[in-house]
C-alpha cells in the first residue's frame, strides 16, 4: 500500500510541475497575476508530494518490503539501518527520485526567497524550474519507477552494492546532486532574464548567491567522491580521470567560470551574454553528467547498467533543454549589450582570462571524456583516453590560470593600474619563490621541473590572496563575508595545487608479495607484514592484516587493511588501512593470498594527499561564506548604478 502511495504522490507531483511550468511562464507572459499566484502553491505542493514519495521508499527499505523490486535489488535483511536508508540512492531509480526531490527543495527555496524580486521574473524562474522537474518526473515514472513491485516476492534482498556501503559514499550523491541541481537555479535565472529581455546588475546580484551555493555543494560532493575512491576502492589516489569523475568536474570548471563572470556582471554590468551562456552550459553539463552516468555508455566504475531507453530519454531531454535554451539565447542575447569598457590590466580583464582558461580546461576534460564516445559513434576504432593525456594537457590551462589569479587579485575594477601594485606583486612572488623552493628542495628533494613550478604558483596564490584582507585588518576596516569567502576559496586553490604537486611527485608506491614477518622499504619507512586474522561483520566476513610501519626502525603506525567477502552478492572488497599524519598518509591495501604463506600488499606513502580534500573543503566554505554575504539579503531592488557596489569595488 505504501509504495503505491509513493507512486501516486509522484504522479500528482508531475501534474503540479506541469501547472507550475504553464502558469509560471504563461502567467508572466500575459502579466496575469492570478495565474502567477498559482505558481508558489504548486512549488510547495510538489515539494510535499515528492517528499512523500521519498518517505514511502525509505519506509519500504527500513521495513524490508522486498515486494518492491528496487528494495529487493538494493538491500538485504542483514544490511544495517543506516545503509538501508542510504540505499535509496544506491542505484539508478532512487538516484533519479533523489534528483527530483533535491530540485523540489531548491525550487521551494527559490519560491521562499524570491518574494522581493519582480513578480513576473520570479514566476518565470519557477516556471523554468517546473519544466526541468517535469522532465525528470516523466523520466522517473516512465522508465525508472522505483516503486515497481515484484512477484513472487523474494525471501530476501540482493543487498546494496558493497562498494557503496560506506559513510562517505552515503552522503556523496546527495551533496553532488545538490550541486548539479543547484545549477538548475542559475539556468532558470538565465532563461528568465532572456524571456524578460532584461538583464541588469540586480539580476546578477540575485543569481550570485544561488550559483555560489550550488558550486560549494558540488565542490564538497566531488571531494567526497574522490576521498571515497581513495580509501574504499583501494586505488590509492585522489583523481583518476575516470569518465564519471570527469562528468562532475566539467560542470564544476564551468560553474567556477560562471561565479567569476557573474562578479563582473554584478559590479560592472559586463559580460552579460557570456554569463548567460555559462549558466546554460553549467546546467547542460550537469545534465550531461547525469546522462553519461546513467546511460551506461561510458566504461566506468559508476556505470551500473546499460539501458538504452533511459539513455535515449535523457539524451532527448538534454537536446530539448540545451537546444531550447540556446535558441532563446540566439534570439535574445543580442538585446543584452554590455556597455562599459575596461583596460587590459583591470580586474574585468583578469576575470575574462580566468573564464577563457577555465572554459579551456573544461573543454580539455570534455574532449578527453567524450572522444571515445564520438569515435564510437562514427564507427572509428574503439579508443580510450587515459590519465597521461589529461595530466599532460590540463596543466597547460591551469598553470597560467594560477599566475593570473595571483596577479589579477591585485587589479582594480575598470582601470588597469597594476603598476601601483608593483610592490605587492613583487613581494608576493618573491615570498612564493623563496618559500616554494625551500619547501621543494629542503623537505623533499628535486622532482620534475613541474613540481617547483606548481608549489611556487600555489604559494603565490595563497600569499596574494592574503594581502588585501590583512591590509584591511591593519587599517581596521570591516571584512565582509564576500571578501572572507573569496580569500578562503583562493587559499583553498593554492593549497590544492601544492598538495597535488607533492602527491604527484613524491608518492612512493610498491606492490609486493610479503610473508608474515617480512617487510618492504619505502624511502625512510618500512612496512612490516605482522599477521593476518579472520574478521566478521554484520553482512560480510573476511581477513584483516596487521601491518606495522617503521620509520628508521621505530614503529610509528599500525595499519589494518581488510579484505571483505560480502555474503549476498558474493563480492570481494578491499578496505585500505590508512594512517594519516599531518604531512602524509601511510597507506596499505591487501591483495590476494598468493600461496606459500604470502599475501600481495599494496604499500604507499602519499605526502600531503589529505590537503587535496581539505582544499576542496576550504573552497566550499569560502563559497558558503560568500553566498551568505549581507548585501544579498537586501530587500531593496538594486538599480543599474548602485553606489554601494562602487564603494565595495574590491569585494568581488
Amino acid at each position: 500500500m505504501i509504495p503505491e502511495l509513493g507512486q501516486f504522490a509522484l504522479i500528482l507531483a508531475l501534474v503540479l510541475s506541469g501547472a507550475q511550468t504553464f502558469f509560471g511562464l504563461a502567467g508572466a507572459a500575459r502579466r496575469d497575476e492570478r495565474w502567477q499566484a498559482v505558481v508558489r502553491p504548486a512549488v510547495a505542493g510538489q515539494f510535499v508530494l515528492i517528499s512523500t514519495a521519498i518517505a514511502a521508499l525509505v519506509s519500504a527499505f527500513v521495513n524490508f518490503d522486498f515486494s518492491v523490486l528496487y528494495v529487493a535489488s538494493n538491500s538485504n535483511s542483514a544490511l544495517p539501518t543506516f545503509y538501508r536508508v542510504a540505499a535509496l540512492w544506491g542505484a539508478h531509480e532512487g538516484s533519479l527520485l533523489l534528483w527530483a526531490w533535491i530540485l523540489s527543495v531548491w525550487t521551494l527555496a527559490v519560491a521562499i526567497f524570491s518574494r522581493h524580486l519582480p513578480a513576473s521574473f520570479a514566476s518565470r524562474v519557477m516556471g523554468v524550474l517546473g519544466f526541468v522537474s517535469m522532465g525528470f518526473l516523466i523520466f522517473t515514472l516512465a522508465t525508472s519507477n522505483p516503486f515497481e513491485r515484484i512477484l513472487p516476492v523474494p525471501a530476501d534482498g540482493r543487498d546494496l552494492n558493497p562498494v557503496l556501503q560506506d559513510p562517505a559514499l552515503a552522503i556523496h550523491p546527495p551533496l553532488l546532486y545538490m550541486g548539479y541541481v543547484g545549477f538548475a537555479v542559475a539556468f532558470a535565472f538565465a532563461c528568465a532574464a532572456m524571456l524578460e529581455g532584461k538583464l541588469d546588475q540586480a539580476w546578477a546580484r540575485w543569481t550570485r548567491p544561488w550559483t555560489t551555493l550550488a558550486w560549494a555543494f558540488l565542490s564538497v560532493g566531488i571531494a567526497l567522491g574522490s576521498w571515497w575512491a581513495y580509501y574504499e576502492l583501494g586505488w590509492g589516489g585522489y583523481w583518476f580521470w575516470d569518465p564519471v569523475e570527469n562528468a562532475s568536474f566539467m560542470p564544476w570548471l564551468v560553474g567556477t567560470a560562471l561565479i567569476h563572470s557573474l562578479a563582473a556582471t554584478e559590479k560592472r554590468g559586463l559580460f552579460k551574454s557570456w554569463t548567460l551562456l555559462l549558466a546554460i552550459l553549467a546546467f547542460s553539463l550537469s545534465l550531461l553528467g547525469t546522462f553519461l552516468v546513467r546511460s551506461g555508455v561510458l566504461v566506468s566504475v559508476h556505470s551500473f547498467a546499460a539501458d538504452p531507453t533511459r539513455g535515449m530519454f535523457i539524451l532527448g531531454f538534454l537536446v530539448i533543454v540545451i537546444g531550447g535554451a540556446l535558441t532563446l539565447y540566439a534570439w535574445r542575447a543580442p538585446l543584452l549589450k554590455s556597455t562599459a569598457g575596461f583596460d587590459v590590466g583591470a580586474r574585468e580583464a583578469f576575470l575574462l582570462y580566468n573564464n577563457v582558461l577555465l572554459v579551456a580546461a573544461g573543454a580539455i576534460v570534455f574532449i578527453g571524456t567524450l572522444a571515445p564516445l564520438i569515435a564510437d559513434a562514427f564507427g572509428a576504432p574503439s579508443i580510450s583516453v587515459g590519465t597521461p593525456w589529461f595530466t599532460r594537457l590540463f596543466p597547460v590551462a591551469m598553470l597560467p590560470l594560477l599566475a593570473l589569479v595571483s596577479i589579477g587579485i591585485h587589479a582594480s575594477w575598470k582601470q588597469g593600474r597594476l603598476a601601483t601594485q608593483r610592490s605587492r606583486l613583487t613581494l608576493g612572488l618573491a615570498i612564493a619563490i623563496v618559500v616554494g623552493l625551500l619547501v621543494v628542495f629542503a623537505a623533499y628533494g628535486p622532482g620534475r621541473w613541474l613540481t617547483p613550478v606548481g608549489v611556487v604558483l600555489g604559494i603565490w596564490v595563497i600569499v596574494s590572496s592574503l594581502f588585501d584582507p590583512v591590509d584591511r585588518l591593519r587599517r581596521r576596516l570591516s571584512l565582509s563575508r564576500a571578501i572572507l569567502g573569496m580569500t578562503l576559496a583562493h587559499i583553498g586553490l593554492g593549497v590544492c595545487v601544492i598538495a597535488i604537486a607533492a602527491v604527484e611527485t613524491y608518492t612512493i608506491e610498491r606492490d609486493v608479495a610479503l610473508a608474515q614477518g617480512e617487510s618492504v622499504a619505502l624511502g625512510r619507512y618500512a612496512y612490516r607484514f605482522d599477521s593476518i586474522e579472520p574478521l566478521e561483520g554484520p553482512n560480510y566476513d573476511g581477513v584483516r592484516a596487521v601491518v606495522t610501519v617503521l620509520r628508521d626502525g621505530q614503529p610509528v603506525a599500525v595499519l589494518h587493511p581488510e579484505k571483505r567477502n560480502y555474503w549476498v552478492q558474493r563480492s570481494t572488497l578491499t578496505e585500505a588501512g590508512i594512517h594519516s599524519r599531518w604531512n602524509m598518509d601511510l597507506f596499505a591495501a591487501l591483495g590476494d593470498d598468493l600461496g606459500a604463506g604470502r599475501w600481495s600488499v599494496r604499500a604507499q606513502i602519499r605526502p600531503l594527499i589529505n590537503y587535496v580534500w581539505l582544499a576542496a573543503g576550504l573552497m566550499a566554505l569560502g563559497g558558503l561564506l560568500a553566498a551568505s554575504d549581507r548585501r544579498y539579503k537586501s530587500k531593496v531592488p538594486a538599480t543599474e548604478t548602485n553606489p554601494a557596489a562602487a564603494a565595495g569595488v574590491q569585494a568581488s
Partner: protein
Amino acid sequence: MMARHKRMVVVGCIVAGVALAAFLAMQAFRANVMFFFDPSQVVAGEVPAGQRFRLGGMVVKGSIEKKPGTLDVHFLVTDYKHTVPVIYSKILPDLFRDGQGVVAHGTMQAGTFVADEVLAKHDEKYMPPEVARSLKDNPPPPDVIPGAT
C-alpha cells in the same frame, strides 16, 4: 581609443592561446590514446609492433595460474575464436575472476600480452561494452558466461 587596440591584442592572444591548446591536444592525442583489440585481431597481427593497446575478452575458465609466493599471474583471454596469453605482476582487482569479461592495458612481447593494468568492474553482471561487441559475432557456448546476455 587605446582601449580598443589593447583589446584587439587581448583577443589576438586568446586566439593564439586556443590554437596552441588545440595543437597540443592533437599532439597529446597521438601519443596517449590507446586502441582496443580483441584476441582475433591480435592473433591476425593487426596490432602495430610495440604499441600499447587495450586487450579485451573473456578470461578462460580455469586458466588463471598464480606462481605461489609471487605477484605473477598468467591467464588466457579469449573471444571464443582465438586466445591470447596474458602475464601480469601487480595486484589484481577484486572482481577479477575467470569466466568474466576483462580489459587489460599493455603490450605484446614475444606472443604474450604483458599487462600493466587490468580492469574488472565493480559489478559482476557488468560486461565491458567493447568486449560485448566483440563477442556479438561469436556467441559463446551456453553457460560459459553467467549474466552476459
